[in-house]
Each structure stands twice: as structure tokens, then as C-alpha cells.
């Protein structure tokens, strides 16, 4: 009888404790499952809140089932410190349910079921909206100025010493009766710097054809070699001297970086070109080439998109095209209205970027970081 009284006395208290433990489990662990944003598909991201703070919980288990299947399968065991888990073992278009199991003391606790969640690949990367906006502004400016130039408006481009010197460099080689050495470095045709180099090569080849000055172009890449041969051939025809084109002067050397440097150095020391033009993508071989050219007394003009190699070229060469000067060379040399228009658009964009940097700097100092985070790219 005493025992029964004791049980009756404890019953409400036990019910209360049971209720509290369930509420605690349901409220303290918050499991969220979403289709992973901005991905190719086949991925669901789970976020777990409320477990990492509890040091008594070592790990938790993630269980998954499909909507029509009651049997949950174990997906992974995850450390409780990890609050995110990406399930990549899912198929697109299927509804998935998730729950968590974890041990607290000797008790196994189960979270409420979340879902259904469906994995899908996205057709637009929302975290790149700012890039798209920027690209549209950029394209509008460039195309706007191209259209403006096509109407016949005159556009002023500031004199670029390195490009002005190309004529003198060709003239020097002609007077000395020596060849001109041209190198586009290690870049392949997928590099925009190599494309820009081909554009400059066209103007150079046209002038060398007029003066009948040999143009030597050792190549690192066979595709660049073929392109260069075509560019020089057309330039010679345009100059009215198709006979000035010598395909043997544009040749493949090697795909080894320092093998290429050795070969070009050898050509320089044997053939003693009066002018060296290093325009394209260069790496560690830049200084080896430029210093060898300097030692033979060649007039050297260089330009590259590699900022590290620029400093070496500045020291070792007579003229260096810095930054975007390499990319504007084509328009500058040919005075093509459309190309000049795009360069003008690019200049205006640069002014806008400078303005944005100034605004960002001032707002950052004042503590308004939204403007800066707006430019983050996902």
C-alpha cells in the first residue's frame, strides 16, 4: 500500500519529466534540409542546430528515406561539432525525408522528421547576379562606344611609348640589315594575351614585309605557330609583298619551358637580331630571354599579362607595355575605329571602377560594409 502511494505520488512527476525530455529533444535540436543552392543537382544540404554546444554528445547519425518508404536508412555518422552536412548520394526529382539520431548518456534521442526535400540543379547561379550585372554594364559601355566609333566619330587614345617605338625598332633592324625576333612566350591560343600578341604581330609583319626585314618567330605551341604563320602570310599579302613571307622563319621549338628559353637564347646569340619583341604570356624564362637580348645589344619591346614578369621586363627591356597596353595595341597600331571604340569604353569603365573603389573605401571607413559585400562573388 505504501508502495502504491509512492508510485501515485511519483506518477505526475514522472509524466512531467517525460514531457520535458520530449519537448527538450524536439525544441533543442533543429534539423533543416534544403536543396543545395546554386549547384548542378544531386545534392541536399542539412543544417543541424543545437548539438554542437552540448559537449556530452560525440556524434549524430543522419537517416534518410524517400517519401513513400517508411524505412529510414543510415546516411552518415557526423561529429556533433559539424553543423552542416551535404548529402550527395541523392537523385534529382525524388522527395526525401531526414531525421537525426544521437546518444545522450545512455538514451538514444531522435529528432523530428524533416522534409520532403527535392534535389534539383539550378539554371542560374544567384550569387553571381552582381557579376552578370557588372558584365552587362561593361558590355553596354564597350558596344556603345563601338557603335559611336562606327558612326565615324574621332576617338583619342593617349600615346603609348612602347607602341610608338615599334616603328623605330623595325626601322633600326632594317638599317642594320639584321632580323627581328618575335616571341609570344609560353601562352597558348586560349590566352587572351596570345590573341593580343597575334594582333600586334599582324602590324609588325606588315611593316617588315614592306622593308623586307626578316622576322623570326620561334614557337612554344604548335597552334600558335600555325596561327602566326597565317597572320604573317596575310600581312605580307596586305603589304603587297607576298614573297616576303617565309614559313620557315615561324617554327615550333619545344614544349619545355627552359628548353624554349635555351633555344631562343641560342637563336639570339647566333643570329644577333637588332630588335626583340616579347609580347604575350611569359613566366620564369622572361628574364633569361630579356637579359640575353640586352647582352647582344638588341632594342627590346616587351609586354605581358603576368604582373610578376613585368618588373623583369621593365628592368631589362627598352620599352614595356604595362597592364592593358598589351590589349589595346591592336587598335592603336591599326587605328581601326571599332577596336578604338572598345578601348574607349574600357577606359570609361576604368574610371567607374576607380570611383566605386573610392566610394567603397569611404563607406568601409564609416562602417557601412554592405556596399563592399555587394561585390562578393559566389
Amino acid at each position, binding site marked *: 500500500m505504501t508502495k502504491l502511494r509512492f508510485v501515485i505520488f511519483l506518477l505526475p512527476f514522472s509524466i512531467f519529466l517525460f514531457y520535458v525530455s520530449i519537448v527538450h529533444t524536439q525544441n533543442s535540436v533543429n534539423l533543416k534540409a534544403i536543396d543545395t543552392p546554386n549547384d548542378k543537382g544531386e545534392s541536399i544540404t542539412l543544417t543541424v542546430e543545437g548539438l554542437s554546444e552540448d559537449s556530452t554528445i560525440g556524434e549524430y547519425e543522419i537517416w534518410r528515406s524517400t517519401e513513400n518508404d517508411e524505412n529510414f536508412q543510415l546516411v552518415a555518422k557526423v561529429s556533433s561539432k559539424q553543423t552542416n552536412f551535404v548529402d550527395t548520394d541523392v537523385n534529382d526529382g525524388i522527395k526525401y525525408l531526414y531525421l537525426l539520431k544521437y546518444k545522450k548518456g545512455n538514451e538514444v534521442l531522435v529528432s523530428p522528421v524533416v522534409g520532403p526535400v527535392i534535389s534539383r540543379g539550378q539554371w542560374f547561379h544567384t550569387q553571381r547576379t552582381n557579376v552578370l550585372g557588372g558584365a552587362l554594364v561593361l558590355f553596354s559601355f564597350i558596344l556603345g562606344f563601338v557603335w559611336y566609333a562606327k558612326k565615324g566619330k574621332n576617338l583619342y587614345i593617349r600615346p603609348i611609348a612602347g607602341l610608338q617605338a615599334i616603328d623605330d625598332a623595325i626601322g633600326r633592324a632594317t638599317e642594320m640589315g639584321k632580323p627581328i625576333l618575335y616571341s609570344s612566350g609560353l601562352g597558348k591560343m*586560349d590566352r587572351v594575351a596570345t590573341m593580343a600578341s597575334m594582333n600586334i604581330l599582324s602590324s609588325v609583319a606588315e611593316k617588315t614585309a614592306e622593308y623586307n626585314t626578316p622576322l623570326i618567330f620561334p614557337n612554344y605551341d604548335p597552334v600558335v605557330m600555325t596561327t602566326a604563320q597565317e597572320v604573317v602570310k596575310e600581312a605580307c599579302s596586305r603589304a603587297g609583298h607576298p614573297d616576303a613571307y617565309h614559313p620557315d622563319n615561324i617554327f615550333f621549338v619545344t614544349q619545355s619551358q627552359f628548353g624554349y628559353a635555351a633555344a631562343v637564347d641560342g637563336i639570339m646569340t647566333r643570329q644577333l637580331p637588332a630588335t626583340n619583341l616579347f609580347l604575350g604570356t611569359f613566366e620564369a624564362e622572361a628574364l633569361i630571354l630579356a637579359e640575353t637580348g640586352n647582352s647582344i645589344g638588341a632594342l627590346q619591346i616587351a609586354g605581358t599579362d603576368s604582373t610578376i614578369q613585368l618588373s623583369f621586363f621593365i628592368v631589362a627591356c627598352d620599352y614595356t607595355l604595362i597592364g592593358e597596353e598589351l590589349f589595346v595595341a591592336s587598335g592603336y597600331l591599326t587605328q581601326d575605329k571599332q577596336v578604338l571604340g572598345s578601348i574607349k569604353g574600357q577606359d570609361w569603365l576604368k574610371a567607374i571602377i576607380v570611383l566605386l573603389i573610392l566610394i567603397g573605401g569611404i563607406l568601409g571607413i564609416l562602417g557601412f560594409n554592405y556596399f563592399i559585400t555587394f561585390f562578393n562573388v559566389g
Partner: protein
Amino acid sequence: MNFTLLNMQRTIPIIVCFIFGFFMLVQFFVPHRASVSAYQTVLDWMQIIFVFTLLVGVFSYIKINSKKITQTQSGWGYNLIGLAGLVVMVVLGFWKGIGEKTPFLWMFNTMQAPMQSTMFSLLAFFVASAAYRGFRARSWEAGLLLLVAVIVMLGRVPLGSFISHWIPDSANWILRTPSMAAKRGLYIGIGLGTISTSLRIILGIERTYLGKK
């Protein structure tokens, strides 16, 4: 007939360039599997095409070197060595393979690799000669450059810290602040130039790479 062929020679590359250029631009904004898969396929094809273009390079190498040897042009001995190297490596590779303990690998490790290292080592001497020329204090700008270079170089070696902690601190400030600002200016210019040139090529405004103006 010729007129049509000429037009096709000009138009088809521009169309191909536009389609692939535009696709590469669009795929950056599309994370979907279809886009990723197509992008990967294009990259795979680039690799396949690259392997075939190497044959063009090898053919050019053999042609130019053979011509110089047969005509005994000046320096033809170098051409002979170069051509012999190509033939020997190809023969050894096909004959004994390119794995461990093969003559091909032995040739690579004991001849080609040391020669490449030798060329790379020359850079140390060239840096010294270029630095000597660059740091000659002929004007106040060159003098300033020399001063900054001395601080940065001393700040990068233990001797700088030994003299004063101001030297490595100043070197770090120079690299982090004025040098980084200048670099970023260059990056912005190069980035805009790259985009502008790419757009001109995609839209067919720039056609010099096709040999046409």
C-alpha cells in the same frame, strides 16, 4: 566557287568562335549539370585537339632542322643534335617503354632534367645583372627604387631583423600597401583589357588572329 570558299573560310571560324565564346560566357552563370557536363566535354576536346596539334609541331621541327642540316647552314650541328635527341627519345620510348628503370627515363633524368635545371639556375645571375642595372641611382626615382629594394631585400632575410625590427616591418608594409595597390591597378587594367579583347573576338570585331583585318 572561289568566292564562296573564301567567304566560308572567313565566316565559319567567326561563327564557331562566337558560339563557343558565348557558351563559355553563359556557362559561368549556369551551375546546372547540363552546363557543367558540356563545359567538361569542351575541355576534354581541347585536350584531344592539343595532342593532335603536337604532331604539327613535331612535323615543323623535323622539317626545319632537316633543311638546315642538308643545306649545312651555320650552326647545323645544333640542329643535328636536336633532331637526334627527338629520334632517340621516341625510339627508346616505343622500344623499352617510359616507366621506371627504362633508358627513356634514364635519358630524361640524367640529361634533360639537368639541362633544364641549368637554364633555370642562370636566372640567379640574370637577376643580379638586371638588379644592378635597375637599381643604379641615376635619378631620384631610381634612388627611391634602390632604397625601397634595399629595405625589402633586408626585410626578407634574418639580417634585417637582427639590425632592427623596423626593417622587416617596413618591408611588409611596402609589400602590403603601396606595392599591392600598384599591383591591383595593373590587375584591373589587365582584367578590363582581357574582357574587352574577348568581347571583340567573340563578336568578330577583332579578326586579326584569323589572319584577316
